[in-house]
């Protein structure tokens, strides 16, 4: 628990479902060390493509007592990543220094077993490169000393207009992400599989108006 574990904390209370994180992620990672993120038929009848991050929308409750929840979803960089030990080539790995789960695209044979082993569906096989792709937490941005310090953050975090995405070290109790998890009830997805996701979500809160 002493080493660094970088992660995102996503605030469902303020996410407005604008998809800016999706497009910003796609733009940054289509080039750089993770690129290309191939699209098939992007302007045709059945467009498909590779994405690291998606925003989904759920309706909770029964009309008229419903709530619309926008739900951004990407790799959770689990502390016990089930996708890593199953990889037959060692292409999938979790970095010791900062806990980011990555794929070595030069070692990946595209067997798809890691995607089967991820309960969250966070991995996508690139249809042209034929290797597995997934969120890198913008590993080629966050350590880039040529960028101004405030820009050394994942592209999705930079793009979010409502500050629904926080980035930091969840093993540092004083980090912005640890404080948010502690003070605002951060939780993990599908805790039943004991993957211990590093990324956590902040719940919706009821707004109270005082007279």
């Amino acid at each position, binding site marked *: 628990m002493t080493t660094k574990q970088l992660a995102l904390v996503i605030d469902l209370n303020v996410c407005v479902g604008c998809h800016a994180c999706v497009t910003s992620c796609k733009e940054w990672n289509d080039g750089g060390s993770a690129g290309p993120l191939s699209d098939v038929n992007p302007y045709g009848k059945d467009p498909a493509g590779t994405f690291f991050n998606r925003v989904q929308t759920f309706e909770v409750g029964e009309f008229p007592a419903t709530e619309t929840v926008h739900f951004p979803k990407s790799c959770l960089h689990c502390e016990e990543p089930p996708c890593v030990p199953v990889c037959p*080539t060692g292409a999938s790995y979790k970095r010791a220094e900062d806990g980011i789960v990555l794929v070595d695209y030069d070692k990946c044979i595209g067997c798809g077993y890691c995607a089967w082993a991820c309960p969250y569906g966070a991995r996508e096989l690139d249809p042209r490169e034929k290797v597995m792709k997934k969120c890198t937490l913008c590993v080629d941005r966050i350590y880039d000393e040529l960028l101004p310090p405030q820009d050394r953050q994942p592209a999705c975090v930079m793009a979010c207009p409502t500050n629904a995405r926080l980035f930091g070290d969840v093993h540092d109790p004083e980090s912005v992400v640890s404080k948010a998890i502690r003070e605002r009830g951060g939780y993990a997805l599908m805790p039943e599989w004991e993957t211990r996701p590093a990324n956590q979500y902040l719940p919706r809160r009821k707004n109270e108006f005082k007279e």
Partner: protein
Amino acid sequence: MRPAWSVILLTTLAGAGQGLFLVVFLLDVSTALPPGFALVACGVSLLLLVCGLAASFFHLGRPERAWRAASQWRTSWLSREVIVLPAFMGMVFLYGLLHFAQSERQTTLIAGAAAAALCLALFVCTGMIYACLKFLQEWNSPLTLVNFLLLGLASGFTLSALLAALAWPQAVGALALGAFFIGAVAWLSRCASLVRNALLRPKSTAATAIGIRHPRIVQKAQGFMGGSFNTREFFHGRPDIVVRATRWSFLLLVFPVPGWLLGWGGGSLAVLAAAFALQFAGLLAERWYFFAEARHPQNIYYQSMA
């Protein structure tokens, strides 16, 4: 899950090859084999394994890098399978060669025993690739391993009776009887896993997937309107009737039909060939259903397009 023909062929062809070898080796231990039969059986077993291995390459995005898959045997059952399969093929080849050279019985049996150990290890590796994924609840059971072993053994036994009709006519009756009983046991065990899976309750729900405690959560959008890897790889996309028809056809073809041919067909070459062909078709359907039946928890995130 979407059934992939490469993996369906790998597991069924290799399973029959493994089963056939095990039957031949057990016969070799207990009685004197006619050299012709041993050679034909080893050849056919090897041929099935080669075809299975060839099919598996079609599952890879980058088959030219397949050699790398032998490196993670400490943690990955897939990596272990990649090592054990060629090792087993090598030992079957050696065992066949020793029969061909008519070498000393003891040497042949030692090679055969090593091959048999690798054969069982291969069944374990193949089964564990699926059984070790704990959130694929339909696969996460010892029955997965038992079924891979028994179904492989059953098809191998039927095939051995067919080969005996060609090269060892005196043994046809006994082998057909063996194929009948192993087929029945495999069928019962496969039925047990059908019953188990029908009673499963998925541990993951929309509530655990997005972490909101509410009994009524409906997806309104999955974030895109075209397809993606997530919508292709984890859904079989066939109507319910196809899935049910596949189940009924494998339930008939894995045992009842070939069992009837083996038990009451008279043991002619044509009848035994039909029994094996029908059983193998049943196993293809069985393996298709095995994949289609598994509900991946990621599917909760991909329920609604609009």
